[in-house]
């Protein structure tokens, strides 16, 4: 008996090690299937604070580039604004001449509201890429909202704490999105193979579909993103597992290396659409 106790005491550090390793693996397996715990992710307050402090320093180095992007975006918006103004003028003129039986509600409720947020952390080093934003539930962000940048689609919100949120980006193997080429209505599935953070894969597109290098890839039906947002551009034909379908490598429009400012999409009709669709299930 004494020998047994001695044995246990002499090797008790192994016991502790085994317990801790078991605990770690428990965390690995439970967490990765739910992805909803706030305390053990960077959405928690302390980790978020550190990332904010570090971002205050690093964002400085990208000011010039961000500014350039804003100017470009501004120019594009101005262009559309003038086009719309011109169109508006012509509509008013024609209206005053004819008579309409039906006038659309011109002050319609907008479907999408955009919440601007700043990226406080990015992780690209491995399989579990994610982005942390400096806005959270107190700013109206909820899980499953879409996130875009000035250039294109970024990802989907997964965890939210009061002041921070974690986004699963396009460049995460868990991310799936239906997408289509600009000049066609057939849609395929967008995913990422883990190799290059500038390139994602568009799969399951019918083989007869014509395409050219440089074709724009847009979002298709999705509960998360509005239609026709830019995802990226076709760069080449990839390896396909199935003879009837094409796989393309897509050069992503969003440059994740220099991502600083994003917009979170608040779809005001999301709950309504979901409730309606859930009735049928």
């Amino acid at each position, binding site marked *: 008996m004494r020998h047994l106790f001695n044995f246990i005491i002499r090797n008790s*550090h192994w016991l502790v*090690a085994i317990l801790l*390793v078991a605990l*770690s*693996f428990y965390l690995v397996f439970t967490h990765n299937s739910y992805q909803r715990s706030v305390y053990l*992710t960077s959405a928690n307050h302390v*980790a978020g604070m*550190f990332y904010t402090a570090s971002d205050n320093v690093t964002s400085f180095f990208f000011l010039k580039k961000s500014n350039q992007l804003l100017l470009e975006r501004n120019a594009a918006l101005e262009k559309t604004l003038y086009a719309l103004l011109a169109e508006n003028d012509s509509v008013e003129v024609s209206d005053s001449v004819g008579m309409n039986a039906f006038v659309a509600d011109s002050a319609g409720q907008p479907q999408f509201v955009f919440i601007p947020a700043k990226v406080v952390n990015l992780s690209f080093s*491995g*399989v579990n890429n994610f982005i942390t934003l400096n806005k959270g539930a107190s700013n109206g962000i909820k899980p499953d909202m879409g996130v875009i940048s000035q250039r294109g689609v970024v990802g989907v919100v997964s965890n939210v704490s009061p002041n921070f949120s974690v986004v699963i980006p396009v460049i995460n193997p868990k991310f799936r999105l239906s997408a289509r080429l600009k000049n066609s209505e057939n849609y395929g599935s967008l995913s990422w193979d883990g190799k290059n953070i500038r390139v994602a894969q568009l799969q399951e597109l019918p083989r007869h579909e014509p395409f050219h290098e440089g074709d724009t890839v847009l979002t298709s039906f999705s509960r998360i993103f509005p239609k026709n947002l830019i995802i990226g551009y076709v760069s080449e034909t990839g390896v396909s597992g199935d003879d009837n379908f094409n796989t393309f490598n897509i050069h992503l429009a969003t440059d994740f290396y220099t991502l600083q400012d994003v917009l979170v999409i608040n779809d005001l009709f999301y709950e309504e659409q979901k409730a309606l669709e859930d009735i049928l299930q």
Partner: protein
Amino acid sequence: MKLSYFYEIALFVMLILLQVLLLNRISLFGLATPVLYGYFLLKLPMGRNLFFVIISAFLMGLIIDIFLNTPGMNAAAFTIVASLRKPVMDLFFEKVEYDAFVPGIYTAAGPFVRFTIFMVLLHLTLLFFIESFTLFNLMSTLLRIVTSAAITILIIITMDSLLYKRKQSEHT
């Protein structure tokens, strides 16, 4: 004795911050990421209490996991490495060396380099295999382990020579 503890706590905090704020954003050729926090285990005195070693390693892994949104992965890999530290040390260093002996490039260059290579390879192999459980193919995982280990070992050896030199000049 007290100074040594203070030094270890500072190393603990600095390595975590370095890892999560800087190194984890590096992805050389889309493959190699330096994983430097294992340096903490290398620099603990040889005869340090095993509970202390294992529990501090677990805590370090867990804190890094919280920052990187990978709960359990770093903690699991690092705890295993910590529990194997003592047998591995017995393998590379001579038994006669006293308990307060801290491995380093100037105290025992050859054994320290071999010890570093072994520990880093062990750590990264565990880490990347836990991380890529089912998702990725074997070749890309192996390539990531080898390239990441190479850059990590290089940084550790450079850092050790620099830190130790500065300490010497402070003493004189």
